[in-house]
């Protein structure tokens, strides 16, 4: 990027008071968006619909580790000092269960109807850099020239993203080593960066699109100072430096050439095959079709619902399931995510959000397992 365009972009940076989120959310609702943002539910930070007048919850942080998540209340009023919760925005663009079509028997055959509701226009408020990156990855899965998914694309085309930079990391975060965060470089309509120091609490506001700029017109903003930008940058740097988990640069190659490593069987002993990692992963896109008939013999429906490669049926073909053992299903998931995704979609399928680590009931760790295989590769070659 040239210095000049960088400068002009920087000139676009504004600041607003933290209370300004109320006006921002209201402006989005007035523009016809269903705003989805963070809410505290069941002791976790979920992304749920906002009504006009609602604001993001203040004074929350979280502790995360393998198989452990705790949301913690504080009295400091910071808006975004927690990181990612159990659900990304995936469930809105790619719903867990969705009717694709229904069929009715007619006198001379059957008639098929696409009776899905029209696509909603969602505004995702508070998307972290890893989540913005994950939406970018799913965009390529659901619309890649070869395949195009109409229901995902209809919702995606209308979606608006308000991103937030992370100013701290959980122990499970590793976005820095995946190159997706802690601050987004693109993919947002509006980008917020929270500054909270020396008694100053404000939000840096940038637009990343025409739609974003149009919304900002409606808000009470001031030009940002150079010092504000520096503070925001320092926050992102600090978040990156906090990250203790680092995915090896060569994960793609390491996994691809170690398909017979003995460590797979070790992971298989711990893996519950519950599929939680795939359900919470913001890029996992597998779905199963379910054809439903009721007691009425003249009608049928086809539903699509989230599936997991940890179910035996996922690899079922004529004659039986290909991946019978738990370890082979774990290997399938991690090698697809970190290695074969590159061949399929030209990028990694992992954004480093760490959800699969936090939400694994037995704390299996995508970074740790990759490192174990990488670090024991040579001894394995000797003894294997």
């Amino acid at each position, binding site marked *: 990027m040239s210095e000049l365009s960088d400068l002009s972009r920087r000139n676009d940076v504004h600041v607003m008071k933290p209370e300004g989120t109320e006006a921002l959310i209201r402006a989005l609702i007035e523009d016809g968006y269903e705003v989805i943002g963070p809410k505290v*539910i*069941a*002791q*976790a930070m*979920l992304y749920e619909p906002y009504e006009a007048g609602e604001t993001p919850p203040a004074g929350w942080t979280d502790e995360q580790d393998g*198989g*452990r*998540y*705790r*949301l913690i209340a504080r009295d400091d009023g910071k808006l975004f000092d927690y990181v990612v919760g*159990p*659900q990304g925005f995936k*469930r809105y663009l790619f719903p*867990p*269960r969705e009717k694709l079509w229904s069929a009715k028997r007619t006198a001379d055959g059957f008639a098929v109807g696409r009776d899905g509701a029209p696509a909603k226009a969602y505004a995702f408020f508070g998307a972290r850099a890893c989540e913005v990156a994950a939406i970018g990855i799913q965009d390529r899965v659901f619309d890649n020239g070869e395949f195009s998914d109409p229901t995902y694309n209809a919702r995606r085309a209308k979606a608006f993203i308000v991103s937030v930079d992370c100013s701290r990391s959980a122990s499970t975060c590793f976005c820095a080593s995946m190159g997706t965060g802690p601050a987004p470089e693109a993919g947002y309509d509006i980008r917020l960066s929270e500054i909270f120091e020396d008694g100053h609490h404000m939000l840096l506001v940038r637009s990343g699109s025409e739609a974003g700029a149009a919304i900002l017109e409606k808000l009470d903003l001031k030009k940002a100072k150079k010092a504000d930008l520096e503070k925001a940058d320092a926050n992102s740097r600090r978040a990156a430096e906090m990250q203790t988990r680092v995915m090896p640069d060569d994960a793609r190659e390491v996994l691809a050439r170690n398909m017979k490593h003995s460590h797979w069987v070790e992971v298989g*002993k*711990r*893996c*519950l*095959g*519950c*599929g*939680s990692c795939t*359900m*919470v992963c913001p890029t996992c896109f597998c779905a199963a079709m*379910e*054809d*439903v*008939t*009721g*007691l*009425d*013999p003249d009608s049928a429906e086809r539903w699509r*619902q*989230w599936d*997991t490669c*940890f*179910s*035996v*049926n996922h690899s079922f073909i004529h004659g039986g399931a290909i991946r019978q053992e*738990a370890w082979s299903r774990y290997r399938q998931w991690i090698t697809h995510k970190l290695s074969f995704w590159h061949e399929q979609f030209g990028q990694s399928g992992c954004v480093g959000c760490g959800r699969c680590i*936090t*939400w694994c*009931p*037995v704390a299996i760790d995508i970074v740790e397992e990759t490192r174990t295989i990488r670090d024991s590769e040579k001894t394995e070659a000797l003894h294997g």
Partner: protein
Amino acid sequence: MADKPRLAVWKFSSCDGCQLSLLDCEDELLAVAGAVEIAYFLEASRTPPQGPYDISLVEGSITTPADSVRIAEIRRQSKAVISIGACATSGGFQALRNIGDYDEIVRNVYAHPEYIDALKTSTPISSRIHVDFELRGCPVNKHQLLEVVAASLAGRRPNVPNYSQCVECKRSGIVCVMVAHGTPCLGPVTQAGCGSLCTSCDRGCYGCFGPKEEANTKSLGKRISEDFGVGHRATADMFRTFNAGAEPFRREALRHDEH
């Protein structure tokens, strides 16, 4: 109406709760009655049995010599036998006696043990006859029950998954009680299907739907007993409830007994 498929509902050793799940299909009950002739259903009518039957739903476990004879006769008279509920599919709660001293239990419970003519074990229907489909649950889920009946009538495989409760929780947007609250939960080794009754109320899963496919109870049992501080005794008890006789749960409970 002679060409309507004939449905029978049979009871063995059980609490009747699964049969009641069928009656609980209030909105759909007329549709069921329209689609099939309910030929035998003591819980709902007094019509005496008269085979043959197209579909026999069987509730309860095999606990007496008489049960063994009767289930064989039901098999002979039925095109399809579908066992419903934890008792019929794993032996039920009463399978707890399989691990105790049968004679001692009978002596302790009954004033006149000599009148008791029971088997030393409580076992699933499939321990005696070929079963065409097993529907899990304590009790069964009414939507799954309707699905099994509808699928049988349509001649297709029922949409009844064998994967974990976790899949169901995550799809429903339920926050994991194990990870977020530290609540011990059998969901990761339990088959989905209940509609997330307990986890949606912030309770851990009790395993009413029995072990999921390839249930890794050893890994979960270790996590719960050691990392969650539940201890071996209580962990064994967790696995010994409605599906105590289901092999993965039975084995895991024994593993914790050994500590």
